[in-house]
């Protein structure tokens, strides 16, 4: 399992990257679509963007970054055989990830109470659809993190460690996608 500098190591396994790059491709398509619509009605997009809660967006960014860091720590500890300490890092990763979901749902609630729906205008169509699809990724990712946590308690085979790495890579992808979403939906002006 230990990597020597002479042999290149692909995290997870090569096939995993079919999905990672595929997903990045789809989100790139999302962003291009968003940019096209935004150019057609920049005023509406700017004015709608102002109604988003930047603070909760920022909190969520920090939550996911922290969670991603915790999972990276967990994988490292697992690699060096510290199963117990790996598990506490995985727990932290799960906790911060779950907190993201709670903040996101509160944010949706706030929008609904303010009378802002997916059908309000094109900006909110993208806002709800993109963050909704991302939230689905977060839920899948949390299931992957639960697997990582589970793997900390069982005997670690090379195959299992590969699966743990794949889960961690997916979680980092979820993180990266959110950072881009945060930038274009909440900040870009």
């Amino acid at each position: 399992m230990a990597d020597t500098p002479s042999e290149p190591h692909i995290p997870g396994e090569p096939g995993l990257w079919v999905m990672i790059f595929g997903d990045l491709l789809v989100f790139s398509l999302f962003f291009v679509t968003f940019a096209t619509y935004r150019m057609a009605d920049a005023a509406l997009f700017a004015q709608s963007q102002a109604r988003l809660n930047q603070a909760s967006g920022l909190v969520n960014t920090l939550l996911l970054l922290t969670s991603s860091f915790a999972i990276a720590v967990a994988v490292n500890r697992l690699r060096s055989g510290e199963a117990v300490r790996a598990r506490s890092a995985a727990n932290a990763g799960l906790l911060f990830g779950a907190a993201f979901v709670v903040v996101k749902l509160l944010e949706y609630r706030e929008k609904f109470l303010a009378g802002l729906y997916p059908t309000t205008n094109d900006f909110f169509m993208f806002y709800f659809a993109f963050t909704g699809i991302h939230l689905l990724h977060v839920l899948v990712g949390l299931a992957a993190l639960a697997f990582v946590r589970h793997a900390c308690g069982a005997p670690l085979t090379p195959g299992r460690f590969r699966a743990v790495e794949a889960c961690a890579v997916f979680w980092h992808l979820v993180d990266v996608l959110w950072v881009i979403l945060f930038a274009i939906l909440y900040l870009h002006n």
Partner: protein
Amino acid sequence: MIEQKICAWGGPFCAVLFGAGLLIAGFVPPPSPLLSAGQVAAIYRDHAMAIRCGMILGMFGMSGYAALVCAISVQMRRMRTSSSLPADMQLGAGAIGVLTVMFPTMLMAITAFRPERDPALTQLLNDTAWLLIIPAFPTFIAQFGAIAIGAFTDTAPEPVFPRWAGYLNLWLALLFVPGAFSYIFRSGPFAWDGLLAFWVAAGAFFVWLMTMTPLTLKAIGRSAA
């Protein structure tokens, strides 16, 4: 062996016939959800025969899909997994998936059967057909997900499907999800004729057909050796 190979070729058979059916009917892209009842009725009146014939072809294509689904599960039964769950789930979900495509195809033909009816009714039937087929993602998640589970947990020395095929299936399943938003929007990328709900999802369906056929043929070839 040969019967399995014939069934695996159901993938391209479905892609060609279903694609041709949609093209003949003039449903690429689908009529916009923004059209008034009168405009929808005019489409079904002016293209009644093309729509009826196109839908017959499209329906025929789904027999190929059913055959491919079965060929995949026959191969998946060879997987060394802790239970037959991946093969069974692929078969069950795939079989229901046939219905979620075939039933709206039938409805479109039915809509074109008597186009002189009240336009409001034609619009209702057209809405029903498109809002059955475009948001129908759940069976595909279960079916493609089952293939992924099988590819990931197969411990045979010569696995039935390569692991990348599992990841590809997960990714393609995801591409069906934006279709669900077509219940909400009448225009834009998430409407039933939109970039993400129609083009991307339809593209994913065709990519799936065209990749699972060679993968299954290869698996059949290996099982014969």
